[in-house]
């Protein structure tokens, strides 16, 4: 499955796809999340080192990988964010439901909960900004030395900078992450506790 919404835009942009593209964005954020210690949650991300795409270019036959180049991420903040999305937006419930059983109208009603909640959670814990301010579809020129992790070139990638092209997607950058502090000993693997009414 491809998570890049700009490549798989459906012809009819109905609410299900809207939600799916929203989820794709959220998962991208999750991927881009810099691992952070529990005790240190207010971080301003450095865009240059935030990308953590699963990189197949690293040769598998070299076990002595330089530690500072490849780092393992702590799952804590990812689990914490999943939990927040479940709490605010019922995200996990929604993803694991078989939506083919329901009409668009029913899915749409649930999508509102997911949309409103996700928006609330993301606005509360992240400050997201587009990377490029220009209108999508407009022409722009990239000078030599542009940041390749900020801007991805596609299509006829030949020659050398300056490059001229059309802005397809403005991109997103997390300027600030402000996740709640987790108490020592809190079990982050519990995304949502089971609920028993007495």
């Amino acid at each position, binding site marked *: 499955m491809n998570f890049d919404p700009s490549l798989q835009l459906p012809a009819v942009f109905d609410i299900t796809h809207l939600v799916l593209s929203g989820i794709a964005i959220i998962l991208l954020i999750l991927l881009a999340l810099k691992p952070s210690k529990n005790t240190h949650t207010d971080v301003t991300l450095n865009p240059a080192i935030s990308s953590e795409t699963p990189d197949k270019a690293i040769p598998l036959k070299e076990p002595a990988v330089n530690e500072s180049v490849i780092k393992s991420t702590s799952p804590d903040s990812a689990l*914490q964010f999943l*939990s927040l999305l479940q*709490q605010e937006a*019922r995200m996990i*419930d*929604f993803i*694991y*439901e078989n*939506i083919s059983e*329901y009409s668009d109208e*029913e*899915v749409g*009603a*649930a999508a*509102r*909960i*997911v949309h*409103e909640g996700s928006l609330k959670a993301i606005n509360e814990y992240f400050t997201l900004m587009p990377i490029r301010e220009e209108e999508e579809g407009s022409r722009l020129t990239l000078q030599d030395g542009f940041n390749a992790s900020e801007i991805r070139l596609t299509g006829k990638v030949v020659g050398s900078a300056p490059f001229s092209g059309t802005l397809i997607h403005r991109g997103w950058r997390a300027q600030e992450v402000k996740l*709640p*502090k*987790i*108490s*020592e*000993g*809190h*079990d*982050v693997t519990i995304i949502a*506790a089971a*609920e028993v009414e007495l």
Partner: protein
Amino acid sequence: MSRYSIGIDLGTTHCVVSFVDLENEGSTAIEDEIKQEILLLPQLASLGSVEEKAQLPSFLYQYHESEVAPDDLALPWDRRPDKLVGELARSLGSKTPIRLISSAKSWLCHGGVDRRSAFLPLDAPEEVEKMSPFDVTMTYLEHIKAAWNQHFYENPIEEQEVTITVPASFDPAARELTAEAARSSGMKNLTLLEEPQAAVYSWIHQAGDAWRDQVSVGDIVLVVDIGGGTTDLSLIAVTEEEGNLGLNRVAVGDHILLGGDNMDLALAYCIKSKLAKQGKKLQAWQVLALTHSCRDAKEGLLADSTVDVVPLVVPSRGSKLIGGTLRSELTRAEVESVLVDGFFPKVDVSELPVQTARGALTKLGLPYAQDAGVTRHLAAFLTKQVDALNNLAGFEPVTGAFIQPTAILFNGGVLKAPVLAERVLGIINSWLDTEDAKPARLLDGADLDLSVAKGAAYYGYVRRGKGVRIRGGIANAYYIGVESAMPAIPGIEIPMQALCVAPFGMEEGSSVTMQGEELGLVVGEPVRFRFYGSATRRDDQPGNLLEDWDEGELEELPEIQATLPVEGLSSGEVVPVYLAAAVTEVGTLRLEAVAVKGDERWNVELDVRENEK
């Protein structure tokens, strides 16, 4: 000397803390140069997760041991608090209401209960630990103190100037309890400030020097503060003092338990009955969830006049989200009829709030306003206070049927909605129009959510003699009940007379004595007096004895009590005393019994423990 002036808005539904660094003023020290900040309050947002928020929801939750994992309650300053307050308290309480305490502030001003006895949460099962409104208030203050002291460990709150806001309509006992709770939390340099006044201070600070251009001598500013739980009204007259503009708070309204929460609930019930017509019956938790989604939908509709329908969804509680979700919608027409016409009806200024006699078997509960019409309460206030300007130099007595405000300042989250703000302004102006008066103008630029806390912090700066200070003193005259000297007639209650003990407008730091009026107190036996307040009798002097008064002029408050200790006196002895009243620098009323012979003084308790109820 304290470095910061801290303002605490101890609200019915939220607490907010603001502060001003007094040392960091600009060298020229003009008003708009001081920097105002909001203290972010760390609190548990969900189990195991601490967030810093500008607002601390005023909710307390008595958790059950099996309800939480041992490590999930840690706060930065407390590994395991034994009570939960704030966001988590509210969310846990929405699912387990028997353990939730809310509206403690309204209980603190409820004269019909003993405010120090532990009875909250009301109707909770035996094993849930009960707390008094006083203790709950103190718990919130302790949380605020811990948050401050953790952040500013070099300048602990105990050494700073603290201003706590109270509704203008708080009775003397509720003010005293608030002050005592703060003192018990270690806040020694304490002042109380009325919330509508705090809103005015915040507006002055926000407007900077320009505030003097927005009002002028002769203006009568009506402050309308509609918060989550209460509606608070005040009138402030603009006078001239030695060539400068002066502000005088001339009247305050009654304690009206009516606010934004009532409005959300009303919308939820409107949707509930709509769903009932479709054959869908709602469970209690669904109504609660509906109330939350109605709040959001209402805000959406009120903020954007192009939207006509906002869908409402109540998610299922189980993990099946799509199948179990309940759907409905809130339309503009519903908001208009339920909120605008229901809470802000177009009425004549002569209309009074509807009062129905409560049944004799009413359950113990908060005295919520019976009439939801805010505009009727407003009309009643303006009519009742028609004589508010009589004693003020430079103002002609009002000849019409009501006092005519020339400017209006709004406060409280409800009035953030332009539709509601315009409605209130429109109705007041329609009243003014009937008396051929000029329409009142809106003083804008106020931050309706945070201005009370901000104004309170700014007040600490004003108290240092910088900037204009609102004068006014106490907004009531106080009386004790004295039985008339007449022969007993069977079946007829001895008529009560009212002895004025504190005059209207008595200022902070002043005192009066009733030396001519001697009373006899019995040593060792608590002696109770009936106690009255009047928001309209401005001319009574201390020692004046009223034989009769008009209906509604005097309002009976909870009884007060004097107990002479046996030490040094013989039990049963009658000691002649006279009363002395003072308004403390903190802003509370103090009554004392003074021995006629000698100068011993005994405190008269304003907050008396009830033996029954």
